[in-house]
């Protein structure tokens, strides 16, 4: 009867909470029962005493009847649990040292796990912060050497793709080649730099982002000549405009032009977090495609799939459409230029996959590492609890003699584990929370979605889950021992050196060996990652980041014709560079429009004059427009000559190329002096520069070509200064110099080149540090475990050692025996650990750089470290053993 079940449960809960009145009622009832029975007996002819006695006999045990009634009416399970918990809290409170250590170990293990889960959840598991984000896809050619330049499309191609495909609700994108601080906000005190991104008009509609205030762009605002508008990002609005809601609809001065603020984006939207990790975007402006039709491949392509369309279907359609895309409608010969004759031309993948797929391996490695830490912690705790329960042998024996069932005592031990685990989980959760908040504010680490890291319900659920799992893991061994051991043995006085004790010693030794093996794996993993990171730092970037810094320069080279503009530009930059060169401490300065390891762009496919190459043999190099002095300021190695101020709009067109390109253009010959057909004309190669790592540090450098700023219009101007002193000390004087020439120069940041390189390496460094911390943690925990087992062994064998010393063994001999025992344990652990480490190293092979999975130095280092740890951990117990006074040891029991 379902109804009865509900009613019964209600009654039981009520009975659990109102014990006293029900107890009183029962007592009254039982008293009346006995009186009635007595009456009956007297009526039958017994004496008063006999009647009473017979009544009691007939009734049976009063206490038992009470207990049975209580069990039947209430929630006995909760009652028992309550008892167990009270008992556990008392015993834990008595042994404060043990409790504190245990809770700390658990807090570290659980806290680390919760923090890493949070990171993994944010970057890998959680869907992107857009509605129905599984429909969003990223469309690009497969990844190549030229970074974002090879992942974009021209304005015409973008519109053509949109027109020709049926799989998408809408197609959008953004302009991928703007630099940081590309806007200057004036009219509000000192000019402030701001970073803006151009997006295609339907960008926010496709993503499903609604503005927090105001509105999104209209179709009118996407057309040429319309009044400039902008959307502010939430953080920028709070910071720059003090969160003033009336800014919507007002005009602000950007780059000298009035721009209307049409809205403020919601706090949940962060362009940088999703699309360009490690950078901050302040405002969003509409991309006016008509202005950019001749700019080349500049637009990224993203879309929202129609409901029911799969990525595979979209991929199939894309493969059919891509041959029809033209770089420019005006040049029919540019049609089909997006087809790669050797493989896949266009890849459609989910946006989530694009944003974080690259990191999947590293994150899984991190997650495994932190899981191992928890395992080590649990093993440690298991050992600690085993030792403790061995010491409490008499207590358990007493309880068993008084009638406690074995199951009851196992349950109490498990309760102890749960309480320890819960306490550790609470502290660990707090630690993790702090760590997560700190991580979310690390803006310089170029990891996607890092700034959206936060603690939520899923993280809490995970905490509870692993707290339970941990309690089960480390509570298992002591619980099993309780379940199988002979309790009465402990009541006998001897207890030392019994065979049961030896078996438990083996179990604990096995646990320590497992700990050492796990620590081994962590150490080898961390070691390999460290060596990879060091190898990455050693990579010859092709330029010298030390003692160099850059600052963005504002200039105005507007003039009626391109040539006049070039002359004006040349004069401005020449003046800037002359003055900056003259500053004390400056060795050389130069200007370029893009810096290595930052944004870059590519256009054109230069061909050596007079030579014919097979299809696809020539790539489009990355294009840099530079001033004289730049090569020197960057510390690049040059063969031939640098550009000079004599290379102007009227003189012969000159270029510099990098060594890799030169080797393909003119194999075996000196490229200097030869003619390259580039940029729509003949250019003479005046210099060959050694390859620089322009797009990333770890991959192969691609091709680079350099044009002089007096012959080609730069997109930007970054002043690079090489100094003999620390660059930061020159920031003030450089800014002053720039302001002398252009009072409108905004207070831009003087960024050291080292910081730019560090940012490129930041994801690898981040992971390496985390795994390193975990390895350190694992090592500490393992050494504590070793110490615990050895120390306890010495304590247990005090009598035996005393006897040995009384029979003539020297102190040194005793010490060596203990140390040997320690070393033996650790060596076995290392043996097992080495095998496991090799397996793990093979799995992370793809994350290593310049390092083999069998790197002997790493394994040797791990061996030495663990041996040292063994000696240190065994030292104290060994000393204690050698100090044992045989007389005292023999006397005690």
């Amino acid at each position: 009867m379902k109804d009865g079940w509900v009613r019964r449960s209600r009654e039981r809960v009520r009975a659990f909470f109102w014990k006293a009145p029900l107890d009183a009622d029962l007592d009254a009832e039982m008293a009346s029962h006995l009186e009635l029975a007595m009456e009956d007996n007297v009526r039958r002819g017994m004496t008063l005493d006999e009647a009473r006695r017979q009544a009691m006999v007939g009734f049976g045990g009063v206490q038992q009847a009470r207990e049975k009634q209580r069990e039947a009416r209430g929630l006995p399970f909760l009652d028992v649990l309550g008892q167990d918990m009270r008992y556990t809290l008392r015993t834990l409170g008595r042994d404060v040292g043990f409790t504190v250590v245990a809770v700390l170990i658990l807090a570290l293990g659980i806290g680390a796990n919760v923090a890493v889960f949070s990171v993994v959840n944010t970057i890998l598991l959680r869907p992107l912060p857009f509605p129905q984000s599984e429909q969003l896809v990223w469309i690009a050619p497969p990844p190549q050497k030229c970074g974002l330049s090879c992942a974009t499309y021209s304005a015409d191609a973008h519109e053509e793709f949109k027109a020709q495909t049926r799989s998408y609700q809408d197609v959008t994108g953004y302009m991928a080649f703007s630099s940081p601080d590309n806007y200057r906000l004036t009219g509000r005190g000192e000019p402030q730099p701001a970073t803006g991104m151009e997006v295609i008009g339907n960008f926010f509609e496709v993503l499903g982002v609604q503005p927090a205030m105001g509105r999104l762009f209209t179709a009118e605002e996407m057309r040429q000549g319309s009044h400039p508008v902008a959307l502010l990002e939430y953080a920028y609005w709070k910071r720059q405009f003090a969160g003033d809601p009336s800014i919507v609809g007002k005009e602000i001065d950007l780059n000298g032009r009035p721009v209307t603020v049409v809205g403020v984006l919601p706090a949940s939207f962060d362009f940088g977090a999703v699309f360009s990790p490690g950078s901050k975007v302040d405002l969003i402006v509409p991309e006016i495609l008509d202005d950019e039709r001749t700019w080349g491949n500049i637009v990224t392509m993203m879309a929202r799939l129609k409901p029911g369309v799969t990525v595979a279907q979209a991929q199939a359609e894309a493969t059919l459409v891509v041959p029809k895309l033209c770089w420019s409608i005006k040049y029919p010969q540019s049609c089909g230029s997006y087809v790669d004759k050797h493989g896949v031309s266009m890849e459609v993948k989910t946006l989530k996959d694009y944003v974080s797929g690259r990191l999947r391996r590293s994150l899984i490695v991190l997650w495994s590492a932190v899981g191992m830490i928890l395992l080590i912690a649990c093993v440690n705790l298991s050992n600690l609890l085993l030792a403790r329960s061995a010491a409490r042998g008499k207590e358990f024996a007493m309880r068993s003699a008084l009638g406690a069932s074995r199951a009851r005592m196992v349950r109490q031990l498990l309760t102890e584990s749960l309480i320890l685990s819960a306490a550790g989980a609470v502290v660990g959760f707090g630690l993790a929370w702090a760590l997560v908040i700190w991580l979310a504010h690390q803006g310089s680490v170029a990891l996607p979605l890092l700034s959206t890291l936060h603690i939520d319900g899923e993280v809490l659920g995970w905490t509870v889950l692993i707290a339970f799992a941990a309690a089960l893991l480390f509570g298992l061994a002591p619980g099993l021992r309780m379940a199988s051991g002979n309790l009465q043995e402990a009541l006998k006085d001897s207890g030392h050196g019994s065979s049961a004790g030896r078996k438990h010693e083996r179990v604990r030794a096995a646990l320590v060996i497992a700990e050492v093996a796990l620590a081994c794996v962590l150490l080898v993993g961390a070691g390999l990652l460290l060596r990879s990171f060091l190898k990455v730092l050693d990579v010859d970037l092709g330029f010298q980041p030390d003692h160099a810094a850059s600052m963005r320069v504002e200039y105005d080279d507007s003039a009626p014709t391109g040539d006049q503009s070039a002359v004006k530009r040349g004069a401005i930059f020449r003046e800037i560079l002359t003055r900056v060169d003259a500053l004390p401490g400056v060795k050389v300065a130069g200007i370029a429009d893009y810096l290595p390891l930052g944004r870059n762009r590519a256009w054109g496919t230069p061909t050596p004059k007079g030579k014919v190459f097979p299809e696809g043999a020539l790539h489009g190099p990355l294009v840099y427009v530079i001033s004289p002095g730049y090569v020197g300021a960057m510390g690049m190695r040059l063969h031939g000559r640098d550009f000079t101020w004599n290379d102007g709009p009227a003189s012969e067109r000159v270029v510099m190329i990098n060594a890799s390109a030169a080797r393909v253009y003119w194999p075996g010959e000196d490229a200097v002096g030869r003619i390259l057909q580039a940029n729509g004309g003949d250019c003479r190669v005046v210099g060959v520069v050694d390859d620089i790592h322009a797009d990333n540090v770890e991959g192969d450098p691609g091709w680079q070509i350099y044009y002089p700023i007096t012959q080609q219009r730069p997109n930007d101007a970054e002043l690079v200064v090489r100094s003999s002193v620390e660059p930061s000390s020159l920031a003030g004087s450089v800014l002053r110099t720039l302001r002398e020439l252009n009072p409108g120069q905004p207070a831009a940041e003087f960024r050291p080149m080292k910081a730019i390189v560090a940012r490129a390496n930041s994801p690898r460094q981040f992971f390496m540090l985390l795994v390193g911390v975990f390895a350190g943690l694992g090592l500490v925990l393992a050494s504590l475990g070793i110490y615990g087992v050895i120390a306890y062994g010495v304590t247990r064998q005090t009598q035996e050692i005393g006897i040995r010393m009384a029979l003539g063994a020297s102190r040194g001999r005793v010490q060596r025996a203990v140390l040997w025992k320690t070393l033996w344990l650790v060596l076995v652990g290392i043996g097992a650990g080495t095998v496991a480490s090799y397996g793990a190293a093979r799995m992370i092979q793809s994350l290593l750089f310049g390092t083999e999975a069998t790197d002997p130095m790493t394994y040797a280092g791990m061996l030495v470290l663990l041996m040292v740890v063994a000696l240190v951990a065994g030292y104290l117990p060994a000393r204690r053993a050698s100090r044992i006074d045989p007389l005292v040891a023999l006397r005690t029991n």
Partner: protein
Amino acid sequence: MGAVKLDLLQGTLDLMVLQTLASMGVQHGYGIARRIEQVSGNEVLLNQGTIYASLVRLQQRGWIEAEWGTSDNNRKAKFYSITKRGRKQLAEDASHWQRLSAVMGRVLSQQ
């Protein structure tokens, strides 16, 4: 003591209590226990105190009701009576028992 007395399972005691109340009408705990002892011909091992666990179970299920009152000799006692639902449950359980014992009898008496 004659032959070894039968131990009572929890469910069977409940059923006996229900039946006793159904045939006796309103009765207190001692009365129910005595009656069961008598009717079973003293073949049942019953610690009278265990009846209170049974009574509280039946009460929680709504099959019996309880009320404090006075006995014939002016003693205070808690009186129990069977409810309509209880009678229904009794009928179901009793028929189930009959079937069960009949089947068991047949099975156990086979050669």
